């Protein structure tokens, strides 16, 4: 447990990487002012007074940096950093109001500590972008009426925090996202129609190859505005998944894996009860030259640090439409047939 000290930062910027659509990291720069403003605003609007922080998010990522480093520095409160080992239980101090900086996987640990969490005078669990996992829903449900609050934060490396909402235990009952005070929606068409998320904010990051941040930012998320300050999130418009909060473009993974394995590859997104989202990798083994073992062995060369797939499926060809879209029903049928033969 350490108490980070606030120190003068000058004008230097802090860099955060995203995976980028080609698999090559893209660098986004934020000023210290932007970081402090964001941590302070979210601290005031969402978190309130806390005496200590337990973080499960790495400080190399914006979410972990803001709440596991910048906010504790601003407030002079101690931090327990558990991001290197998601199986490690936090020290919970009965007299301390605690901020838990959570990734989707964190909830698998917290659900084993419900009696201890109930004893705390006040706990705020800040859930970084990612779907609410079954474990998160169980924790929130079982701690209802205690001093425990769970808040989802929506944002990205490029945009910073965009919106928030109290976590709901039932996805069907989830409230709309509420914009943070300094964020504005840019609506491109009729206000209530489905559109890509497009925002203005003083906290947009600067791409390393640009002199200034963009005036507005369009994200790969599909939303439906509820009013000027709220929206419903409908889905994503690209092959992007967040594996335990870590962004991964599975279309780029498929392209890179195809090249390394020398066979056609497709990746499908899936819900994951621990990581929030994940993906499965299908490879064409019609030639009979590949096995799961060889694919697992060669994949790291293709992934370049991106998350490994949850599972592999060998299929006799990747079925596609004339326009190149995956024929999901045929893909699933081929997988089921292969599994039946193996069993």
């Amino acid at each position, binding site marked *: 447990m350490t108490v980070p000290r606030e120190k003068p930062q000058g004008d230097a910027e802090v860099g955060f990487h995203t995976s980028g659509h080609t698999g090559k990291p893209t660098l986004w720069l934020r000023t210290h002012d932007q970081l402090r403003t964001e941590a302070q605003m979210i601290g005031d609007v969402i978190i309130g007074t806390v005496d200590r922080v337990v973080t499960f998010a790495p400080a190399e990522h914006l979410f972990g940096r803001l709440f596991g480093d910048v906010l504790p520095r601003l407030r002079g409160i101690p931090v327990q950093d558990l991001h290197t*080992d*998601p*199986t*490690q*239980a936090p020290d919970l101090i009965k007299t301390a109001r605690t901020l838990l900086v959570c990734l989707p*996987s964190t909830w*698998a*640990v917290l659900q*084993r*500590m419900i009696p201890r969490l109930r004893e705390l005078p006040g706990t705020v669990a800040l859930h970084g972008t990612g779907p609410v996992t079954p474990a998160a829903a169980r924790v929130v449900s079982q701690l209802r009426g205690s001093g425990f609050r769970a808040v989802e934060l929506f944002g990205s490396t490029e945009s910073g925090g965009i919106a928030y909402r109290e976590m709901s235990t039932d996805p069907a009952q989830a409230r709309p996202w509420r914009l943070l005070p300094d964020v504005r929606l840019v609506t491109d068409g009729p206000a209530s129609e489905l559109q890509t998320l497009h925002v203005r904010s003083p906290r947009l990051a600067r791409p390393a190859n640009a002199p200034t941040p963009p005036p507005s930012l369009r994200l790969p998320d599909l939303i439906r505005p509820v009013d000027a300050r709220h929206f419903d999130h409908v889905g994503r418009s690209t092959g992007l998944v967040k594996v*335990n909060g870590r962004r991964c473009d599975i279309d780029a993974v498929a392209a890179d894996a195809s090249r390394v394995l020398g066979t056609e590859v497709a990746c499908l997104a899936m819900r994951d009860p*621990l*990581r929030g989202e994940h993906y499965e990798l299908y490879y064409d083994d019609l030639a009979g030259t590949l096995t*799961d073992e060889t694919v*697992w*062995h060669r994949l*790291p060369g293709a992934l370049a640090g991106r998350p*490994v797939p949850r*599972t592999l499926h060998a299929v006799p060809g990747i079925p596609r439409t004339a326009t190149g879209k995956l024929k999901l029903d045929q893909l699933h049928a081929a997988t089921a047939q292969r599994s039946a033969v193996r069993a």
Partner: protein
Amino acid sequence: MTSSAVPSPADVRSRTRDALRQRLGPLDTVPDETPLPDALGPRYDSLTALECIGLVEAEFGIEVDFIEHDVRHAFRSIAAITGFVHDLLEDQASLRAHR
């Protein structure tokens, strides 16, 4: 329940392999003593270990205490999991016998 109701280490090992198969696929070529990260590489990261803990808990009706138990050590290999689970089942059986 008495200690005789506790499954043998061989049973625990066999059921552990079956439980882990759901997540990790066949482990026939992985020796009991080999550290799973060595055998499976990046497939067995700390999050996968967390999933395996859940599978083993469900299989044996036990609860792993992340504060009291050294989870990282207990789930490093099939032999380690077997020993950990068997000890936990014996402890539970003893507690029940003394109530």
